[in-house]
């Protein structure tokens, strides 16, 4: 089936099998390996991306369900090489050890801050309840999200508001079905 999506501001059209997962499409077709797979059970949240501005677990969405929609991944957050305030806050607050959960944590934290610009500790913890970290014990992740909330101008929270897509001449255009 032919799908057209906008991923991190670039428009892609591809022929995909209906059973292809969105995360597979992002990683294997578009080379967006910043989004990772941590589990097989829809539990860990490592694969979190935004679909039309809302966080979803991309391992639990079919690529065909994303047809005609806008996707933002962790790779779409930095602006011209400058880290997004959430990325910077994770760095500054040592909110990662192995880093595997980090892309999903940041994408979910961004979703949380859009709904609640100034969450307290409990609100951060429940906002991130769908994201598992096996290393940090969460303490510094919570700290980082709260620090980012203080620093983030409201514009940064809307990082994935649809912009005019750039049409790509990507390898995906020539990929097989």
């Amino acid at each position, binding site marked *: 089936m032919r799908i057209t999506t906008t991923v991190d501001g670039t428009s892609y059209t591809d022929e995909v099998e209906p059973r292809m997962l969105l995360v597979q499409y992002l990683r294997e077709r578009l080379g967006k390996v910043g989004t990772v797979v941590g589990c097989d059970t*829809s539990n860990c949240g490592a694969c979190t991306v935004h679909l039309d501005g*809302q966080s979803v677990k991309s391992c639990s969405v079919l690529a065909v369900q994303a047809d005609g929609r806008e996707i933002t991944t962790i790779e779409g957050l930095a602006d011209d090489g400058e880290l997004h305030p959430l990325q910077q806050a994770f760095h500054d607050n040592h909110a990662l050890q192995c880093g595997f959960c980090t892309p999903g944590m940041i994408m979910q934290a961004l979703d*949380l801050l859009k709904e609640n610009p100034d969450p307290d500790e409990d609100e951060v913890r429940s906002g991130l309840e769908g994201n598992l970290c096996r290393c940090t014990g969460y303490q510094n992740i919570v700290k980082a999200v709260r620090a980012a909330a203080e620093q983030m101008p409201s514009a940064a929270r809307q990082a994935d508001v649809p912009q005019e897509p750039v049409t790509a001449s990507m390898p995906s255009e020539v990929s097989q079905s």
Partner: protein
Amino acid sequence: MIPAAFDYVVPASVDDAVRELHDAGEDAKVLAGGQSLLPVLRMRLAAPSKIIDIGRIPELKGIRDEGDHLVIGAATPHHEVQKNQLVRDHALLIALATETVADPQVRHLGTFGGALAHADPAGDLLAPALALDAVFVVAGMDGRHEIPASEFFVDYFTTALRPGELLLEVKVPKYTGWRAHYEKFNRVAQAWSICGVAAACRVDGGTIAEARVGLTNMSSVPVRARAVEQALVGQQATAEVIKAAASHAVDGTLPTSDGNADAEYREHLAKVLTERAVTAACS
């Protein structure tokens, strides 16, 4: 893991969806939010030959006010149900139970009707739908009909939906001014209920005028705790009254034993959680 191959269609209307479902036969599966179905497909616990994606049918989405009841479209995402002002004003119990479902990402995609049609006994929306006497509107090739909640849940993962039928919407009578609480017991974040209690009460000058209580995961289907309700109605909302009423919580239940809890522990939980839920719903 990757699901087994299937054909995929995206009907634009309920009529198209019903026709697709009929033509495809028993081997087809409806996909709403996919938050229960995709994990099942990925683990290859099911391998339908055709997936009918109802996620783009406008008629199945949204919440409207129809006078004495609300109508919640089957494909309305949890996230929308939980925030919706009509639901919060007239069916608060449903909003509160929905807040406890899974996690934010799953609630963005997972749908009200999907959770009910899936009929997992640990699902958090079944007991509230039963307690509030919701009515399920379903469509098949021979037209539309209604099924009361008390007849909708048949067994583990089994509803009164017949092959080829689609859940369209759920009618929920209005409980304006009622207080409510959903008390869920689970061990870790985003986990399913080991036991859950859904309570809604109308308290009038300290007296419990009406009470509705439903239990999650205390049988293969949600259970209405009628003995608890009867012990509450007409009484003052005191700690003693509520505790005494909660002791009836296991009447009519048939809990199972599994890796999370044995039946005896579930019975203990049902009483404790009923006391907590009713106390919260009366205060």
